[in-house]
């Protein structure tokens, strides 16, 4: 299960970083005429960081851990947030009517939909975009705010709330799905073990009965030497009988569920064993 969670984290981080990369490229193309000398370098740095993150993910694709994928996802988001900040600054400097924090809003929804590996990663990423927007809003002069679309920073806050709700919903669904898979796996293993125990019992019961009868017949012999051996065998038979009773408690109808009318336990047992070793 840990491997599955780590692979899921790897995919989420790959997607999150890929989207940040694509967003940066689109931003560079869209805002290339903005009067912001820092925009292109910031975009290039963001692209380089994203590329490094993607390469690291590819490098660790078989060995990655959830924690490593989480840290890498955050690493890919920081330069994009900086890039978005510079772009907003440049658009504010134009002095025309504009809608601020668009990249932040998009990123908050994208993070929620991508499904971060852990709740704290998602909250940290959402917090990064919301925090940078709120800070920027606080730092903007009243004159700049006059040219903004109405409703800020509430609109950005709204996006953030929607993002968090989506993320929580998604992570809870994922957790429920994981629990169902875990229970099903446990059931399948239990059923298989019960089937194996049943086949072992099927094979052991007749020899055990034979031993019981043979010991009973031997016990009629009063020779002290034979008696000693007989007692030893009797004790072993008792132990086998106890084992048999323990195995009996695992009878959950495994044979009936398999729908096999044939009672060839040796065949069943070897089939199960070969399935296990495959």
């Amino acid at each position, binding site marked *: 299960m840990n491997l599955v969670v780590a692979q899921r984290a790897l995919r989420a981080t790959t997607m999150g970083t890929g989207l940040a990369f694509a967003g940066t490229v689109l931003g560079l193309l869209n805002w290339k005429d903005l009067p912001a000398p820092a925009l292109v370098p910031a975009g290039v740095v963001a692209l380089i960081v994203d590329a490094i993150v993607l390469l690291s993910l590819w490098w660790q694709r078989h060995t990655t851990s959830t924690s490593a994928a989480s840290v890498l996802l955050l690493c890919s988001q920081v330069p994009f947030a900086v890039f978005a900040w510079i772009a907003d600054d440049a658009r504010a400097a134009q002095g025309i009517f504009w809608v601020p924090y668009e990249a932040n809003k998009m990123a908050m929804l994208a993070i929620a939909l991508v499904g971060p590996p852990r709740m704290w990663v998602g909250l940290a990423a959402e917090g990064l975009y919301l925090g940078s927007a709120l800070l920027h809003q606080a730092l903007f002069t009243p004159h700049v705010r006059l040219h903004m679309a109405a409703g800020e920073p509430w609109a950005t806050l709204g996006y953030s709330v929607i993002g968090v709700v989506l993320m929580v919903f998604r992570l809870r669904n994922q957790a429920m799905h994981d629990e169902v898979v875990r229970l099903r796996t446990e059931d399948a293993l239990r059923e298989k073990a019960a089937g194996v125990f049943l086949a072992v019992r099927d094979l052991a019961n007749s020899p055990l*009965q034979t031993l019981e009868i043979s010991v009973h017949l031997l016990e009629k012999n009063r020779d002290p030497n034979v008696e000693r051996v007989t007692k030893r065998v009797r004790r072993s038979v008792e132990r086998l009988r106890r084992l048999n009773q323990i195995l009996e408690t695992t009878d959950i109808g495994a044979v009936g569920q398999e729908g096999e009318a044939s*009672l060839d336990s040796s065949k069943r047992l070897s089939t199960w064993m070969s399935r296990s070793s495959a």
Partner: protein
Amino acid sequence: MSPTVVLLDDDDDLREALVELFDSSGCECFPAASVEELQRLPSRSLESNVALLDINLGAERQSGLDAFRWLQAQHFGGQIVFLTGHAKSHPLVEEARRLSGVRVMEKPMPMDELLALVLPTKAAPS
């Protein structure tokens, strides 16, 4: 007159041990390893007091239930007991349990219970 037992079990060792046990207890035993062998037993075996039938007689072979049906068709008048080493949940064992007028016992059975099946009026020898 000594009690008589029809014994059907495909396990050679168990069949041999049961025959020895019943012989030593004064029972006459008619052993068979398969339904076909059972059908070839002397006709007086059908007058036995008890028929001890294993349910599983091997894959793709007639089962103890087939033996039961054959005995019924022959108007066997004795008690019929299925002796099985298989799980209660198995379809054939469940089918046997649903039959009326039979008992289904599980292997391995304690000696006193086993002997009581064929010697109901006699105390089991120690």
